[in-house]
């Protein structure tokens, strides 16, 4: 982390690893799609519709992981004053928002044939919707504040406060009586999914995680360059 604190060094490392990361992402996505459509069997109750799980569940996991990443980065802004912390937080927000949207959209398309409804105001769905709005909120807050340092501090504080929603989303199915099914993967007793569905799900999780990482690094690089542009313009005006 210390060695990555130098933005120039980070840019050099990012530029070097991005092509490999992109290739790994594409390969993982192809494998995930193949396993999800041609290897995983249909569910005994849901039939082929269970295949929506291979996009819905990874998207939900990464929507939560995105806010967690932003929260850790926010600690970096407020506590450790790490030079790249705010860059990482800013880059993660749009990606997390997109994954939260994909979660809600695919969830509705899964819910209609399975539950008979596009939407219910149960704890899981509602808290995930709140997470999506929180992503939009931090992006709007940052855009509304001109001074970058002040924006970084205020967004970091809001992000840390909003982190309370992450365990609410995760444990909502345990704490309240919900239509959404309970935890099947991260459970005290271990995964409750048959291996023929579990491993294709894990393959898709990896693929989406690699996608998140790739886009995150691209956006961090873009943000560092934008900050460099701002510095150069300020120097030109000062001269």
């Amino acid at each position, binding site marked *: 982390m210390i060695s990555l604190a130098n933005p120039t060094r980070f840019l050099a490392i990012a530029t070097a690893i991005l092509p490999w990361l992109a290739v790994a992402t594409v390969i993982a996505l192809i494998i995930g799609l193949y396993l999800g459509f041609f290897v995983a069997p249909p569910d005994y109750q849901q039939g082929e519709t269970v295949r929506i799980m291979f*996009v*819905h569940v990874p998207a939900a996991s990464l929507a939560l992981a995105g806010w967690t990443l932003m929260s850790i980065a926010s600690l970096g802004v407020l506590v450790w004053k790490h030079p790249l912390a705010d860059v990482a937080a800013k880059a993660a927000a749009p990606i997390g928002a*997109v994954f939260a949207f*994909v979660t809600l959209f695919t969830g509705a398309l899964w819910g209609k044939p399975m539950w008979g409804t596009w939407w219910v105001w149960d704890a899981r769905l509602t808290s995930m919707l709140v997470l999506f709005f929180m992503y939009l909120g931090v992006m709007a807050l940052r855009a509304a504040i001109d001074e970058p340092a002040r924006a970084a501090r205020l967004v970091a504080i809001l992000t840390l406060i909003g982190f309370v929603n992450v365990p609410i989303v995760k444990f909502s199915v345990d704490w309240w009586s919900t239509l959404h099914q309970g935890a099947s993967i991260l459970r005290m007793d271990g995964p409750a999914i048959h291996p023929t569905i579990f491993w294709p799900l894990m393959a898709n999780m990896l693929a989406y995680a690699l996608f998140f990482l790739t*886009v995150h690094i691209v*956006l961090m690089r873009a943000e560092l*360059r934008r900050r460099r542009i701002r510095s150069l*313009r300020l120097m030109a005006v000062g001269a």
Partner: protein
Amino acid sequence: MLGLGPHAAYIIVSYGVAALVLLGLLIWAVALDRGASREVRRLEERRRQEAKP
């Protein structure tokens, strides 16, 4: 349809919209990065030119 059962449309639309949205995110990120890269090069070149005696 396509051997995906009676709810095939829901499956296809799920994957289709997810793919479009994620692809859109990727294209936007790359466009932002490339635009910033071009602008940095332009400003640094201008600075070098102005620094020449």
